[in-house]
């Protein structure tokens, strides 16, 4: 259940990288947003938008140039902010000389867990991610997908309250992706907060409650998923046959309508207006075969936002 308390608060956070061939780079520019306790928050953006920079700032790999952020009420510069969090980075490099079990033992120890507790927890997590049979094999024998599953187990080793996942299904097959998605939804039901970076918009659309969209270091939109995928109502109306006369009448009443091969595609200001179109067709004795709402996908909204077009909520 999502509550109003804030698991993560970010206020005017900026990160400027100096030096290098490109001179000064504003990786993040005055970004502010919150993540509520118990929600799955997705951070989207094209390559180089600043998503990984954001995660690194929150988790202590990078220091902010300006601004503040807190995790569970603790400033990100403190050790306390990293208690009870789990993290799976993108392009992680787990030590290849360790076995699956040893790797979890190591990261569990680094998280401060007692050894007795670790042993039972490791077996449970390995079974949960489907890697129990590989627990004594060295990581150098693991495929990318297997490494990703193990990485997810590592992120959960200390029973975190907030989990940061950067491209968690990268390299995972469709069945594995489904399983990871189910794990994430199950974690949400347990009251965990998940901060998810992903390029897979379909994945974000299926698990996230809210999203933030970054582009060139700036936050251009945050909001519930429902708001971003519900733009103006659009419909696809299939008819038995349209005459030139009726096409003219439709275009007169609905100037934005697109008519092709007896199919009318139309975006309306109000969903009730579809009744007006159907009435017009019936009055002209045109048979209506089907009326199908066109769902605007997150990808469509995302592309429009990145290009600077307005998305109506």
């Amino acid at each position, binding site marked *: 259940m999502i509550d109003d308390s804030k698991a993560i608060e970010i206020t005017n956070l900026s990160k400027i990288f100096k030096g290098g061939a490109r001179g000064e780079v504003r990786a993040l520019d005055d970004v502010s947003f919150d993540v509520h306790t118990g929600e799955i928050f997705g951070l989207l953006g094209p390559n180089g938008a600043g998503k990984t920079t954001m995660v*690194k700032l929150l*988790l202590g790999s990078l*220091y902010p140039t300006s601004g503040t952020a807190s995790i569970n009420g603790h400033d990100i510069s403190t050790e306390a902010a990293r208690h009870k*969090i789990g993290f799976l*980075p993108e392009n992680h*490099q787990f030590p290849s000389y360790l076995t699956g079990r040893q790797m979890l*033992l190591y990261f569990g*120890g680094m*998280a*401060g867990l007692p050894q007795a507790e670790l042993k039972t927890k490791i077996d449970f997590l390995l079974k949960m991610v489907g890697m129990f049979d590989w627990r004594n094999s060295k990581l150098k024998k693991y495929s990318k997908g297997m490494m990703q599953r193990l990485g997810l187990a590592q992120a959960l080793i200390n029973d975190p309250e907030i989990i940061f996942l950067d491209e968690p299904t990268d390299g995972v097959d469709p069945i594995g992706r489904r399983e990871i998605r189910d794990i994430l939804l199950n974690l949400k039901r347990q009251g965990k907060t998940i901060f998810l970076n992903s390029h897979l918009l379909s994945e974000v659309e299926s698990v996230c409650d809210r999203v933030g969209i970054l582009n060139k270091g700036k936050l251009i939109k945050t909001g519930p998923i429902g708001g971003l995928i519900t733009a103006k109502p659009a419909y696809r109306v299939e008819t038995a046959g349209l005459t030139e006369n009726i096409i003219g009448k439709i275009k007169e009443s609905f100037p934005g309508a697109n008519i092709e091969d007896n199919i009318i595609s139309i975006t309306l200001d109000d969903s009730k207006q579809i009744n007006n179109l159907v009435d017009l067709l019936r009055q002209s004795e045109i048979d209506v075969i089907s009326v199908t709402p066109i769902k605007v996908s997150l990808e469509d909204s995302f592309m429009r936002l990145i290009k600077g077009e307005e998305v109506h909520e």
Partner: protein
Amino acid sequence: MSKFYAILLDTFLEIRSSKIIYLYAAITLVLLLVFGLFPSIDIESGNIPKGSLFSPELASEVMAFFFSGFLGFVIFLMVFGSAWLLPAYLSRGRVELILSKPINRFRLLSMKFAAVFMIKSGILITMTILIWIILAIRLDSFSGYFFFGLLLGCLQFLAIYTIVFAIGVIGRSGVLAIMGYFIIRIVSGLLSSREIVYNFLGDSVWKTIIDIFYYILPKIGEMDSNYKSLMTGNGFSNTFAIYTTLAFSAALFLITLFIFRRRDF
């Protein structure tokens, strides 16, 4: 499980997985066989007094002669064996995970340093003691002075590893760390012979500059001169080299910690 134990275990497994550990084992085995089976030969000339190689009369000289060279050689190998450890630990994809854990950077790096040093010096001590036992049996001399030499070896490794560690953290390159070690070794050797260079310098300003570098930089080569005096029961012959080298190492270690603490990864 304590965080230090987790780091120690991980470091142990990492070192164990490297092929160089087989080299250490092979060297130890070969020397054990050589000293165990090599016939005692007569020494006719050279720096060691005349007598039989494995006679008790020559025990302290043989021990000092052998172990000063052996420890230097093994420490040299250990530089190669440990130069890559910190760069690998701080590599992209691994360091972000480690830094996301609830541990401050000072403690993290200090524990990693301690873990590497403990394991490597443990290997050094084990190798040395095994060979000493065989040699002591052959020489019929179980002198405790040997352990002072072993302690000096560990201190020398501590000083050298601090340099390798610092360059590994700052430069994030094992190759740079090895090069840095060689450069400092060569420069410190040259500085210990600075009196020769003074003959060519008329200007006292350059002499002062050279002296400053001499006093600041570690004196790893000069520490070697202590082995013989220690192992023959005559105490330290050059404590100045030891104190200044350890002071340099401590300062370098602290500088490394501060740089690491403020660094973006």
